[in-house]
């Protein structure tokens, strides 16, 4: 090791001192900045992941819709599966119904699915924690967890379902009875809006409820893993017959605004929190400057021993680099620890402020998501180490400018 690196380490971690105070405080400052950056970008990244999960797991990678509905779903399915990149597709029909149990009404969105095909596209079974997807038949319904809790329905209970056809029937003075469906399952996806207002029925039941026998609103599509969903959507669009007035959109396009805002927030947070590191770097600069002044005579001595000014500069610059690296490592470790225990931390926080329900309603999550993004972590590491090395430059320049003769004369 060249003498200036050796001396830099010795000055950071002096022998005989049990705890290197200056170094520890500088490192801690940087580490706190890194920790906050890691935690916040990872949680934001977790939000992004969640959007993807709940979209792809309920409506597939790509969704095709046709304005007037798809009248011959079987033919369309055959066409769709011929498009390169399409692995599987399943038809759906959507609407809103009134659902009643024990005189407690609710107005969920209802999704009619093809029980035979749906699992090839979306892993619905994964989210059904009471009952089974296989039990879904034309006389049954799968409720979302919060909805079931709100109306007090359990697996095996009967619920009454009324569709907009009821209004049509009332207008023409026809008798219309609600349809009785048996609850055969309860699901929870982990997204507040979906868990409180979505139910699944079979495609056929949905067609009956809306009086559109034989037609589907669109298809959920699963694509080859690794294929860009936007690219797949473009291919499907190219293959759609013009008469259909259909349109395929990737999950990203469907959530475009949300993803855009999230990305913007993530970048803003990164940008703002970087200032914590810059502030920490200023404290590194000032403590190194103090050390240059304190060590004026030693720096003169290094010159007398044969040290070159640029080597003296390297000695101080290297101290900034080491503080940066130690701060980064400590900060990453702290960040990972906080993220590991994030649910406990959030729980403690909400218990303190009694705001559990509000947070869940606002953020749509029961648990705080987190996803380490390699690009953000890399950016944090590079940014911190660069900033800390720059922090060493000013002290290094001061030290290199000291003339040994004058430094040795100073008292």
């Amino acid at each position: 090791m060249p003498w200036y690196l050796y001396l830099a380490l010795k000055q950071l971690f002096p022998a005989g001192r049990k705890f290197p105070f200056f170094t520890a405080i500088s490192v801690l400052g940087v580490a706190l900045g890194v920790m906050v950056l890691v935690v916040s970008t990872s949680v934001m990244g977790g939000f992004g992941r969640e959007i993807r999960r709940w979209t792809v797991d309920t409506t597939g990678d790509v969704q095709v819709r046709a304005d007037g509905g798809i009248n011959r779903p079987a033919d369309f399915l055959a066409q769709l599966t011929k498009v390169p990149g399409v692995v599987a597709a399943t038809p759906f029909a959507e609407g809103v119904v009134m659902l009643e149990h024990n005189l407690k009404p609710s107005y969920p969105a209802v999704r009619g699915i093809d029980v035979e095909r749906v699992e090839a596209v979306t892993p619905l079974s994964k989210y059904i924690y009471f009952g089974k997807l296989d039990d879904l038949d034309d006389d049954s319904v799968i409720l979302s967890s919060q909805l079931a809790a709100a109306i007090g329905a359990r697996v095996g209970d009967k619920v009454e379902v009324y569709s907009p056809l009821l209004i049509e029937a009332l207008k023409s003075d026809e008798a219309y009875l609600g349809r009785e469906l048996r609850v055969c399952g309860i699901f929870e996806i982990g997204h507040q809006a979906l868990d409180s207002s979505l139910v699944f029925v079979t495609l056929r039941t949905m067609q009956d409820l809306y009086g559109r026998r034989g037609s589907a609103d669109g298809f959920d599509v699963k694509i080859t893993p690794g294929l860009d969903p936007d690219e797949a959507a473009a291919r499907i669009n190219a293959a759609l017959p013009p008469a259909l007035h259909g349109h395929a959109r990737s999950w990203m396009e469907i959530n475009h605004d949300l993803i855009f805002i999230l990305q913007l927030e993530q970048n803003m947070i990164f940008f703002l929190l970087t200032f914590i590191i810059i502030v920490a770097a200023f404290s590194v600069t000032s403590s190194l400057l103090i050390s240059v002044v304190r060590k004026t005579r030693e720096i003169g001595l290094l010159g007398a021993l044969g040290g070159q000014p640029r080597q003296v500069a390297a000695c101080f610059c290297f101290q900034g680099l080491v503080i940066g690296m130690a701060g980064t490592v400590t900060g990453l470790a702290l960040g990972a620890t906080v993220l590991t225990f994030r649910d406990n931390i959030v729980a403690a926080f909400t218990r303190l402020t009694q705001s559990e329900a509000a947070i869940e309603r606002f953020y749509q999550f029961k648990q705080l998501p987190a996803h380490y993004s390699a690009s953000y972590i890399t950016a944090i590491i590079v940014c911190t180490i660069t900033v800390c090395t720059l922090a060493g430059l000013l002290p290094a320049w001061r030290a290199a400018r000291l003339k040994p003769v004058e430094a040795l004369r100073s008292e």
Partner: protein
Amino acid sequence: MNPAPSSSATDAAPVLQAAGLRKSFLSGEGSIEVLRGVDLSVMAGESVSVRGESGCGKSTLLNLLSGLDTPDAGTLTWAGHPPRGDRRAAFLGMVFQSFYLIPELNALDNVLMAARMLKPPGAAERARAADLLARVGLAPRATHLSTQLSGGERQRVAVARALMNSPQLLLADEPTGNLDERTGDAVIELLLELCRETRTALVLVTHNAVHAGKTSRHLSLHNGVFQ
């Protein structure tokens, strides 16, 4: 980097040759000329003492000889070559009135610091450093931090450090100025003895007539020139 060729040609050339060295400093409105043409030639194995009243420019002269400062006029050669900063570590050692040890390092590492300037020290350098510490009587204190040493002990560490790279020239600026008489005498004895053993040329600045008397040549600086 620049191993001294052991040929007789180099032995014949003076280790240090200065001619017509001049140096003046700006002070207030005018400038004072401290050195007005100093000539000095020192051969290997020779020891020269420099005396003179306080403020006459002895330290200024040593700074010029060590290449740390540049003269306004005159020429200087180290073993026949012009002085260069990157040759200093191998060519000369310096001892100062204040001891200037590095407080973060222990005695042994302070001595080794001189070797580090040339290259990362190996076993041979470590052995030599330990040897030198033993020669100055500090073997048992090798692992003590410099802050744990007394003034005399620190100066002995500084002497060991100055000799670490087996320099051809040793410049000492009042090395006993901060020491009591007995300790000072011991340090000077040590300095002279070590230099004699290795035929290291020595320039010793001192106020002490007894110390000056022990060198092979005596000079005194007055009005900016040697008398």
